[in-house]
């Protein structure tokens, strides 16, 4: 077919998709509603959440996962486009891990060494490792659906970012349930759960996000 002829057909086709940002907003809303519904039905926030909100460890934990979720979602908004991602937004991903490292340092200084293993192992790691990936699923699926309509420069990278944002949002929900607030617990178990979902996103993205 001649290129001139193809252009005639492209010009005649006026069907357009909604802007990517709008699609991601819907994906986030739909995924969050599903995840939150599942969370409230099965786990729910911890019974003593009213008192926990006033404690420094709980507050820092929530701020960390919230920061990770927000910085990862701003990257999701860009990763569906073929053009290079804003470097500042990539660098911003480091904010939450740096904050976590500082909190770990502070915890190691104020808690005696013989108490470290108890804090690290916690009581709820098995729930942490299952609940975060499960609650991330609806969000990851919704992000991947939108990314498939997008044009990511790398399917694996886009899938990984989607997995990171989905599991960070799931971690926010989970953090309100988990009784373990020590930065030592957070620094060991949350990254395993979030890293697993991020890796799954990368593998899925490699196959699903070609265009």
């Amino acid at each position, binding site marked *: *077919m001649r290129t001139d002829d*193809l252009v*005639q*057909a492209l010009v005649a086709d006026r069907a357009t998709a909604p802007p990517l940002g709008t699609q991601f907003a819907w994906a986030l809303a739909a995924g969050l509603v599903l995840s939150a519904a599942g969370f409230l039905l099965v786990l729910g926030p911890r019974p003593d959440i009213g008192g926990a909100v006033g404690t420094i460890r709980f507050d820092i934990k929530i701020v960390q996962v919230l920061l990770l979720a927000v910085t990862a979602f701003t990257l999701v908004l860009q990763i*569906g486009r*073929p053009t290079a991602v804003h470097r500042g937004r990539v660098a911003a991903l480091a904010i939450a891990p740096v904050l976590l490292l500082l909190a770990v340092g502070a915890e190691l200084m104020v808690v005696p060494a013989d108490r470290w293993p108890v804090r690290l192992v916690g009581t709820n790691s098995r729930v942490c490792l299952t609940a975060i990936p499960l609650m991330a699923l609806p969000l990851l699926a919704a992000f991947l659906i939108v990314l498939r309509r997008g*044009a990511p420069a790398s399917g694996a990278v886009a899938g990984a970012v989607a997995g990171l944002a989905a599991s960070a949002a799931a971690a926010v929900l989970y953090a309100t349930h988990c009784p373990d607030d020590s930065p030592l617990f957070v620094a060991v178990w949350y990254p395993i759960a979030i890293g697993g979902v991020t890796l799954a996103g990368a593998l899925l993205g490699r196959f699903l996000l070609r*265009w």
Partner: protein
Amino acid sequence: MSDAGWSDLMRAANAGDAEAYGRLLHAIAAALRAPIRRNLLRAGRSAADVEDVVQEVLLAVHLKRHTWDSERPVGPWVHAIARYKVVDALRRRTGQFDLSIDEFSETLAAEEPEPSVPASEVERHLATLPAGQRTVVQAIAVEGRSIGEAAERLSMTAGAVRVALHRGLAALAKQLGQD
């Protein structure tokens, strides 16, 4: 044509100006032929494939145009689409995964007219589309009919013609990216 010119045409196109959209797609094709040829030859591929890749890029530009951020210039976005499609075309046919290509420079290449021998890949995949989509794409692309004329000739509603055209183009783009 300058990059600012492309962005203006794209904005006009998104606002419904079909004539501007046609000019933009022609300008993109004319500017990409030289860099696409350079990359194909460098990877040991035939210059005869250039127009196929140009058409693949045009289809992607068309189907992915909602991924352009209208507050940014459209040139880098077009080059990013072209880059992805060139790497993909080379990867599919050479089986190599780690390909470096000449970057599409931000300064636009000399415009080059369409070669006299038509590209064959779109034609080949067109033949495998469902009959409804194929006849609609052919009526509009090859026979140059409008949506209304095609609807009348094929005894379809204009809406059905629009749907078949869009699905046909999306199916073509998908198939081109798969073999």
